[in-house]
Each structure stands twice: as C-alpha cells, then as structure tokens.
C-alpha cells in the first residue's frame, strides 16, 4: 500500500510539474476549455442570482416588462456609447489632429455583453462577460460603457471572456488630461479599499498641478489596445513625487456595479 501511495504521489507531482511548465498556448487552450465547461454553470448562477434579486424586490409579476425594459436599456446604452464615440470623433476633427486616422479608428463595431460574475480572487480586479470567440470577441479588446472605459479582455473562450478592469494594477492605459498637455500611464492600485476602484495616473510632469475634476481620457497609443478618446475618469487629487507627478483618478464607471458593457470588436 505504501508503495502504491508513493507511486501515486510521484504521479501527482509529475502531473503538476507538467501543468506548471506548459507552453503559453497550451495553457490558453486548457484555460479556454475549462471556462467553456464552467460557463453554463456561471450563466445558471447568474440567472438564479437575478431571480432571487427579482423575488426580493417583489417584481416577479413584472418579469416580461422588466426583460423588455432591460433590453431597451441595453440598446439605449449602446446608442449612447456610439454617440459618445462620434462626439469624440467630432472633437478630434475640430482640433485637426490626425483627422483622417482618427476617423478610421473611431468607427467601432460594438458587441453588447453582460457581466456574468466577478472574479472571486482577492488580488486581481476582473469580471467575466457572457461573450466569447463565438461572438467575435478576441483577447485584448477594449470594454466600454456609455460612461467610459471599463477594461480589456485578457482571456476568451467559446462564450465567456475575462475582462481585466482598469482598476487592476496590470491594466495600463496611455492617458491624457483634457484641456492640458499632460500625458501619462494609468494603472490600478494593487491594494485599494475602494469598492469602485481607484486608478493612478503616473509619469505626469511635476508642475502639472491638475485641478480636481479634470477629465482623463485614453490617449490612443500607436499599436496599443485602447483607442483614443475613451473617458477613464476625473482627477481626484494630484501630488508631486521625486521625479514625476501622480494623479489619483476616480473612474467614470462604477466598476463594482457594472452589468451591461460593450466590447469593441473591430475598427472599420
């Protein structure tokens, strides 16, 4: 028996080592396959959660109206998001900055999606949405709402995708402050007790002196993930550091309560 246990232990360790040293492509396939298996359960869980919430609010008899209302809300938000992008395009055209290129970049095709669940991990800020490669979603696609930027897709399976929120330390966005020449790189904080999330805008000039309330938008780095003009949030405070200036940004989207989002799947 002891010999059998030893063999099984060795097998488990071997298997764990093999899994640990798998190539990135193999891990992505494994992860995608696992999430495809899990996604029906997550969808059922979300439906159950909504059902419970609906019962709690006493809206059980208004289910159909509620569904229709939600569909219209989604359409409305999609239209508002599109309008915002078109407004950005108009503004950029007015400034005569890279007009032609910006027009090309600002024509997005949006796929509406819903947040299925929020990652249960403690140290990362991610959510899962109910769209995957079947819907044309790929890795590194920006996620937005009508209020601004939410994050980007980091893993995609058949019909579910994981979105890294802009409040995650690993999500870095080239950003600029409206009305100034200040540009920097935004990223989330590793540890934040704010449920809405907090973002830092680093590498600003020391003399920036940004006023609270100034709008921060994505700068649209060449070859980057995020197109220009997407709103990140507003400046909460500014401080000088030894070598640069740092602004604390309040996200324009409440990342703790988002439900309906849009994936920018392509630029025409």
């Amino acid at each position, binding site marked *: 028996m002891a010999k059998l246990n030893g063999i099984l232990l060795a097998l488990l360790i071997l298997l*764990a080592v093999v899994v640990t040293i798998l190539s990135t492509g193999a*891990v992505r396939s494994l*992860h995608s396959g696992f999430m495809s298996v899990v996604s029906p359960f997550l969808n059922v869980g979300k439906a159950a959660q909504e059902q419970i919430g609906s019962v709690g609010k006493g809206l059980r008899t208004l289910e159909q109206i509620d569904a229709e209302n939600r569909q219209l809300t989604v359409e409305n938000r999609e239209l508002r998001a599109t309008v915002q992008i078109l407004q950005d395009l108009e503004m950029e055209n007015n400034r005569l900055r890279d007009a032609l290129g910006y027009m090309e970049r600002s024509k997005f095709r949006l796929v509406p999606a819903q947040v299925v669940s929020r990652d249960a991990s403690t140290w990362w800020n991610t959510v*899962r949405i109910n769209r995957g490669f079947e819907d044309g979603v790929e890795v590194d696609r920006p996620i937005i709402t009508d209020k601004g930027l939410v994050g980007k897709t980091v893993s995609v399976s058949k019909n579910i995708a994981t979105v890294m929120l802009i409040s995650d330390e690993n999500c870095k966005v080239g950003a600029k402050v409206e009305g100034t020449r200040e540009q920097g790189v935004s990223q989330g904080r590793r540890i934040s007790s704010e449920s809405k999330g907090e973002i830092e805008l680093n590498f600003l000039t020391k003399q920036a002196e940004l006023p609270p309330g100034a709008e921060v938008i994505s700068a649209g780095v060449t070859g980057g993930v995020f197109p220009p003009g997407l709103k990140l949030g507003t400046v909460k405070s500014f401080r000088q550091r030894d070598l640069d200036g740092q602004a604390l940004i309040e996200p324009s989207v409440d990342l703790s309560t988002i439900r309906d989002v849009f994936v920018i799947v392509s630029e025409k």
Partner: protein
Amino acid sequence: MTRDALSCLGLCVTIFLALILQEFIPPLAGLEQARVILVPMIVCYAALALPFPFMLLAVLFGGMGMDLINLQWVDGKNGMVPEIAPGATIFYFLAVGLVCQGLRVLFLRGYWWLFSLMSGLSTSLLLLLQFVFISYRRFDTGGIEWSAVVLWRVFTPGLIAFLLAPLFHLLAYLTGRSLLPVGSRSRVFG
C-alpha cells in the same frame, strides 16, 4: 474502498460547486473587500477524511480548478502570460493535504476542530502566498506593499473558513451521512 471512492466523488463535485459559488459571493464591503473562499476548506476536509490516494485526487481536482478559474493573464515579454502558473495551487494543496493526512488519525478519533484550524490556516496561507508571489512578479512597480488592507484580506477569509468549517461538517453529516467516514461520524455526532 467504494465508500471512499463515493466520498471522493462527492467532495470533488462539492469543490466544483464551491468554485462556482465563490464567483457569486460579493466581496465583504465592511471588511476591506475581503472575499469568501471555500475551496481550501473542502480540500482540507477531503484530506482529513479520505485515505491517501483519494486525498491526492481531491488535491489535484481542487488545485487545478482553483488555478484555472483564477488564472490571470498579464503582459509578458512575448505577449500575455499567466501571472501565476497553473499547477502552483496543486503543489500548495498537496503540502496542505500531506499535513492533513498526518492529522487524519486524530480527526477520525473526533478531534473535529482540526478541520476548522486547517481550513482557516490553509485559506489564509494561500492568500498570503499569492500576495507575496504577485508582489515578487511586480517588483519593478513597488515590491511588497504591506498594509492593514492586505492583512484584512489575508486573515478575514481564513477566519470565515475557520467558522464555516464546523457548519460544513455538520451539513455533510445531516445531508449525506453515507458519504462521511465512519470514525468521524460516530465520534463527533454519534
């Protein structure tokens, strides 16, 4: 053997359900956004209640499940890479499982609180190791940043697991008597 195999199967299903359930439990707003994490508790239960080969199976299933559902992709030198390699939690759960196997005799004699203790410790230690590891990976952006929030997020889930473990044990007894090892059932509740 059949009873143990069934117990293992039941606990693997429970681990899977816990993986899903965890996703829908919101962070605890009043406790610095700490999360409720259930899987280490169930793995501990399997490791304390089941014989060695079945413990290994539960460790493999729980570790792989935790790694894959929490897998985080970050920008690397050549595209996106997992921040913590899948398989890491298998090693961690294996270490926990081996300790639990050493305590198994006591658990089967009725020292049920060992389950609570191991659940709390293993949950907090897992979070602590994750934090240290990602801090090491992100050393260029600040290194380890200790704060009261970190401690809350490490120790609160452990405390919750510590408190939930007896309830889980009781629930398992009430709902699935045949799936529990005879020793623990008779000593603790019988």
